[in-house]
């Protein structure tokens, strides 16, 4: 492991390396070749990035086929959220589960998209979706209630598969 390439001094360079012209030609040809290769830019908004299953987008509530949310308003996500972005208000219900969230609000300006709420949820009721397009014009618009947070379960299948396999 003692082999260290010796630093070449200016005296050690060959004539062609000293006048620098072959290096210039190599640099120019590289740039010219790159000009004709295909570009990697995705032209948003015509082409949108479709993230893989492991992507942590905005948190959403899972809505089962019969239109009822899976959330039982245990309040674990609200407790674990490092940014204190989630607010849950529980209430009684006639369904089999004991409670349901009467008010479930996530303040998207506070949310840091860490995914702790998804990790701690015992019912797989809140998951990080693939949605990244969030732009608000005032602060009140950014407090998402249940109407904006409920997403049908078939749209979230990617994320649920990822969670079951890896976490």
């Amino acid at each position: 492991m003692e082999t260290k390439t010796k630093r070449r001094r200016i005296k050690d360079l060959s004539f062609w390396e000293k006048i620098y012209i072959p290096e210039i030609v190599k640099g120019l040809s590289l740039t010219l070749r790159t000009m004709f290769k295909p570009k990697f830019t995705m032209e948003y908004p015509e082409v949108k990035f479709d993230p893989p299953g492991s992507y942590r987008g905005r948190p959403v509530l899972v809505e089962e086929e019969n239109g009822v949310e899976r959330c039982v308003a245990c309040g674990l996500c609200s407790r674990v959220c490092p940014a204190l972005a989630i607010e849950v208000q529980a209430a009684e219900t006639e369904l089999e589960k004991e409670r349901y969230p009467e008010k479930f609000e996530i303040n998207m300006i506070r949310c840091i998209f860490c995914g702790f709420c998804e990790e701690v949820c015992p019912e797989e009721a809140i998951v990080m979706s693939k949605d990244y397009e969030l732009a608000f014009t005032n602060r009140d618009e950014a407090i998402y209630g249940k109407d904006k947070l409920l997403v049908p379960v078939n749209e979230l299948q990617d994320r649920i598969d990822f969670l079951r396999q890896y976490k």
Partner: protein
Amino acid sequence: MNVLEIVIVSLIKIIVVVSIMLVMVAYLVYFERKISAWAQNRIGPNRVGWHGALQPFADLLKLVLKEDIVPVNADRKIHAIAPIIALLVALSTYAVIPFGPDLEIAGFTIPLLVADVNIGVLFILALTSLGVYAITLAGWSSGSKYSLLGGVRSAAQMISYEVSMGFSIAGVLLFAESLRPVAIVESQYGWMWNAIVQPIGFITFVVSAFAETNRLPFDLPEAEPELVGGFHTEYSSMKFAGFFLAEYANMIIASAFIVTLYLGGWQIPYIQELNLAPVLETLLCVGAFVFKMVAVLFFFLWVRWSLPRFRYDQLMNLGWKVMFPLSLINVVWVAALIMIFG
């Protein structure tokens, strides 16, 4: 042609040349952004107009609407005059560059250059030397360290490379035996373009042209990591636009000058043998000039995104210890050629 006709024709030529050159400067900025983007695997501006072709007008509008800030320590009068000098130099050198052979319409023979001055080459050299004033004044009058350093470095760089530029031109002049740009173009008949006859002079002139226009790899005076912006750090809005335009206009002049002196100007080799109508031949020659100029401009843009920047001492070393002797060798070479081949 009487005086009135001469005046009218000259006015028309001035308007045509100035407007075309201004549009060319604006679109050079656009092409710089596009080509630099392609060389980096991305697309340049493509939202404003078809494929982003109206981007220069958007840029211009933005610069016009910006606030004009002058630092507290600045010398206001000189701060305002410096971009004017830069633009003056940049726009008046177009007057002596020929962009085609004589145009013969309706019995009139119109030379296709705004002013057929006997000392055309000397005129251009003198004006580019004035350009040094613009940058030095800008650097000094801004009242900030970065500007002063940038201005002084740029002045030293430009003056150093003017020496080798002058001697390279001396080689061309030996060949053409005249300072008129038209005579220089006409002395390069057939395949005997100066780039082939005097290759060393061509290389030293091109390198000096890069240094004169403060263009990479010699752009230390305006390098962002080193000097934040050099002499134009403290300029905003239209004054900055003045410097910006002057830099690109200088680039266009440098490439037009290279084409005139070394690449045969507007000539297409052996076009006489096709025996075309004179107007068509003139148009083709003008097209050839524009094509050659665009090729040299592309070379300027291409080199900018391919080579690393020279450090200041390497730059001065190159200018005085390498380019100057090479240009002197070039003069000796041309003199030897003339002596041998007559």
